[in-house]
C-alpha cells in the first residue's frame, strides 16, 4: 500500500516549476528537439494526459520532469491526471464513447484495441521512432497496431518475474530457480517441506494473478483461442496445466486463494513466503527500507533475487508481462501536439532518464534502449531488460482486441485455475465453465 498517495498532479503548474529547470540538460535538449521534430504542435495547444498511478515514486518524478521539459520546449501546457490502474480503462472507454475527455490515455494491455476506431493513427510516430531506435519488439507491434496501422505507442512493459530468497531455495537444495516445469515443482515442494513455502495469487489479482496463470496455461501448450479466435480451451493441454497448478498450489503458503496484487508483496517483505511472482517493486521496497536503516529490509534486499519463469513443454518462454500503451484520442483538438508528446517521450534523451527513474520496474519496447544504464546498475535487475522480447500478448495466438481484454477482465483463466486449485471443481468442470464463457465472448 502506498501511504503517500497524491491525488492529482497538476502538470499545468509545470510552468512555474519549469523555471527551476531552465538551463538544465533536459530543457536544452528539449528546445533543440522542438526545432528538429517533424511533429509541430498546434498554436495554443493544451494536452491532458491520463495515466496509471505510478508504483515507483522516482518514475513519476522523472516523468513529470519530462513533461515539464516538453512544456518548456513547445509551449504546450500538459495536465497530468493519475488514476489507479483499474480505473484507467473505464475512464478511457467512457471518453471514447462520449468523444470528450483527456487527449492522451496511458493504460495497459489491449486498451487501444477496445476502441481502435477512436484512436489516432500514430503510424508516423512509430515509424519515426523505429528508424532511430531499431525495430519494435514483436509484442510491441501486436499491442500497438491494428489493421496495419499504429493506434498506440507501447511505451513500456512491467516485467513480472519470480522473486525469491536465495538462502531459502538453497536450504531446499537448489542453487537457482529450475527452468523447467518438473524442477520448479520440486523446488516448491522442497520449500514447503522446509517450512518456507512460496505462493502465487489465486484471488482476483489482475496483475500478478493473471501473469502466473497465463504462464502456466501457455507453458503446457494450452490456449484460450487459436489464431482465428476459435475457442480451444477444452484440450488435454489445459487439463495438464490445471493438474500442474493444482499440485503446485498444494505447496503454496496458506491463503493464496484470497491474495490480490498486494498480498504477496506484504508476505514476502515479512519473510512469510520464500518465493512469489511480482514486478521488481518488492526489491525496490526492501532497498528503500534498507536505506532508512531497517536491518530486516537489508537482509531481504541482500538475500532476494529475481528469475525468469521456467520454460514449459512448448519449449519457449511463455511469460506474460504487462504492457503500457499510450494512445491519442481521435477527438483531440491538437493531434500534432499529441504526436509531438508521444515522440518526445520516446526520444532517447527523455526516455533514458525516465527508464532509469523506473529502476527496472519498467522495460523498453525498442532495442536501442538495451544500452540504458539501469540494465548495468544492478545484476539482480538485468533480467527485466528482455521483458518485451519474452512476453506473449493478451489473447496470445488470437487477436489482442476487446475480446482478449474482456476475457482478462472476467478473470476467465484465473477463475478456472482458482476453482480447480481450491478443490471447488474438477478440471473438466472448470474448463466447461470457461469454455462456455469464452465462446460467448469470442462469438
Amino acid at each position, binding site marked *: 500500500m502506498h501511504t503517500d498517495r497524491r491525488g492529482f498532479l497538476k502538470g499545468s503548474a509545470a510552468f512555474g516549476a519549469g523555471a527551476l529547470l531552465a538551463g538544465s540538460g533536459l530543457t536544452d535538449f528539449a528546445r533543440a528537439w522542438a526545432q528538429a521534430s517533424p511533429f509541430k504542435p498546434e498554436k495554443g495547444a493544451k494536452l491532458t494526459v491520463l495515466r496509471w498511478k505510478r508504483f515507483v515514486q522516482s518514475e513519476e518524478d522523472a516523468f513529470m520532469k519530462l513533461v515539464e521539459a516538453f512544456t518548456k520546449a513547445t509551449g504546450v501546457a500538459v495536465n497530468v491526471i493519475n488514476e489507479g490502474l*483499474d480505473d484507467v*480503462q*473505464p475512464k478511457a*472507454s*467512457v471518453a*471514447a*464513447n462520449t468523444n470528450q475527455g483527456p487527449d492522451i490515455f496511458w493504460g495497459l494491455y489491449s486498451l487501444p484495441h*477496445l*476502441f481502435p*476506431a*477512436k484512436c489516432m493513427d500514430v503510424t508516423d510516430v512509430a515509424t519515426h521512432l523505429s528508424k532511430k531506435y531499431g525495430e519494435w519488439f514483436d509484442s510491441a507491434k501486436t499491442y500497438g497496431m491494428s489493421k496495419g496501422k499504429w493506434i498506440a505507442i507501447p511505451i513500456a512493459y512491467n516485467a513480472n518475474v519470480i522473486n525469491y530468497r536465495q538462502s531459502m531455495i538453497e536450504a531446499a537444495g537448489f542453487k537457482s530457480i529450475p527452468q523447467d516445469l518438473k524442477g520448479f515443482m520440486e523446488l516448491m515442494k522442497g520449500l514447503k517441506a522446509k517450512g518456507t513455502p512460496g505462493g502465487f495469487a*489465486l*484471488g*482476483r489479482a489482475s496483475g500478478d494473478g493473471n501473469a502466473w496463470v497465463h504462464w502456466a496455461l501457455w507453458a503446457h501448450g494450452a490456449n484460450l483461442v487459436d489464431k482465428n479466435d476459435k475457442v480451444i480451451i477444452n484440450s488435454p493441454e489445459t487439463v495438464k496445466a490445471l493438474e500442474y497448478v493444482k499440485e503446485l498450489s498444494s505447496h503454496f*503458503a*496458506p*491463503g*493464496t*486463494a*484470497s*491474495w*490480490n496484487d498486494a*498480498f504477496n508483496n*506484504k*508476505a514476502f517483505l*515479512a519473510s*512469510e*513466503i520464500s518465493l512469489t511472482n511480482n514486478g521488481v517493486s518488492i526489491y525496490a521496497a526492501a532497498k528503500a527500507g534498507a536505506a532508512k536503516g531497517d536491518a530486516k529490509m537489508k537482509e531481504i534486499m541482500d538475500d532476494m533475487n529475481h528469475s525468469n519463469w521456467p520454460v514449459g513443454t512448448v519449449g519457449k518462454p511463455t511469460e506474460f508481462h504487462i504492457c503500457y500503451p499510450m494512445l491519442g484520442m481521435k477527438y483531440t483538438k491538437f493531434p500534432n501536439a499529441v504526436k509531438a508528446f508521444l515522440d518526445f517521450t520516446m526520444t532517447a534523451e527523455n526516455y533514458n532518464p525516465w527508464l532509469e527513474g523506473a529502476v527496472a520496474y519498467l522495460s523498453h519496447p525498442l532495442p536501442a534502449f538495451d544500452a540504458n544504464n539501469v540494465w548495468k546498475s544492478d545484476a539482480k535487475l538485468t533480467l527485466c531488460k528482455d521483458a518485451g522480447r519474452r512476453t506473449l500478448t493478451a489473447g496470445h495466438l488470437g487477436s489482442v482486441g*476487446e475480446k482478449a*481484454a*474482456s476475457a482478462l*477482465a*472476467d*478473470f476467465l483463466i484465473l*477463475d478456472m485455475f*482458482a*476453482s480447480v486449485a*481450491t478443490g*471447488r471443481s474438477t478440471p473438466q468442470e472448470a474448463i466447461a*465453465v470457461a469454455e*462456455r*464463457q469464452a465462446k*460467448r*465472448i469470442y462469438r
Partner: protein
Amino acid sequence: MSDAAITPSGHDRAGPSFWEGLKTNRNFLGFWFMLPAAAFLVLFLVYPLGLGVWLSFTDSKIGNPGDFIGLENYEWIIGDAKFQLAVFNTLFYTFVASVVKFAVGLYLAILLNNHLPFKAMIRAVVLIPFIVPTVLSAIAFWWIFDPQFSVISWALRKWGWISGNIDFLGDPWNARISVIFANVWRGVPFIAITLLAGLQTVSPSLYEAATLDGASKWQMFRYVTYPILTPIIAVVMTFSVLFTFTDFQLIKVLTNGGPAGTTELMATMSYNTAILGGRIGEGAAISTAMIPFLLGAIMISWFGLQKRKWQQGSDND
C-alpha cells in the same frame, strides 16, 4: 362583464373563461408545482433506470451502442454458472447479513434504551462503524482477514487455540462468512439507532400498565414493544435489505468476488462485466435482474406497513 364578476366560476362557459377557470383550478396549479420534482425524478431516476433496462436488451459494448437482441442476454446469464453462483451468493449474503443485523441491532437498541451511565456517549460510539467510509473499513477488514497478518489468527495462535493461520478469504465459506461479518459490523449501527428512536416513542405508561397486569419482560416486549415498533422495523429492514442486496464496495475491496467467484455479488459482477469487461448489455442484464428481488423486498415491507392499521385496532381496509 359585471355578470362575469358576479358568477364565481366560469367553468360552465366556453371561450376565454376556460383559461380563467384553469388559472383557479387547484389541480392544474398543483401540476405545475409538481413539475420540477417530476422532472428531477424523470431525469435522475426514470431515465437511467429505463436506459439500463433498454441496454439489457442490446448487445451494447463500450464504444458501440449495439443492436436490439431481445432476451439473448437474459438467456445467457440464466445459463451461466457464474451468474447462478452470484445470485446464490447475493441472496445468502443479504439474508444472513440482514437477519443478523436485525437481531444484533434490536438487541443493541433495547440495551441503549435503558438508563446507562454516559448514555449519550455510548450512543455516539455505536454510530462509528456507520460513519467510517466503507472503503476505509473494508481496508481495515482486509488486514483483519489477511492470510498472513490477521490479528485474529495471531491472537488465537498466541493463546494456543489454533496452530496455523485461518484462511479467512481464501476458503469459499470462510470468505462468505467473513464478508458478511464485515457487512454486519457496518450495518448494525443504522438499525440500532433507528430502532432506538422507535423505542423512545413507546409511552412509559404502557409499560406501567403491563407491569400492573403482571406481564413478564418477554411479554412486555412481545405484546407492547414489538407491535409498536413494527412499522419502524418494516422501514428499517427494507432499507437494510436494499443496501445489503446492492452492496458493492466491501466486496470489491475485500475479495473482488474471489476466490473463483464464490463471493461475487450481482452488483460486483455487473460492474466487472459492463465496465471492466466492456460488455454493457450483459452487465445491464445482470443489474436489471436485481430489480425483481428488490421489488420483492419492498412489497414485503409494504405489506408489513399495511398491517399497522390492523394492529392499532382499526379495520383492515
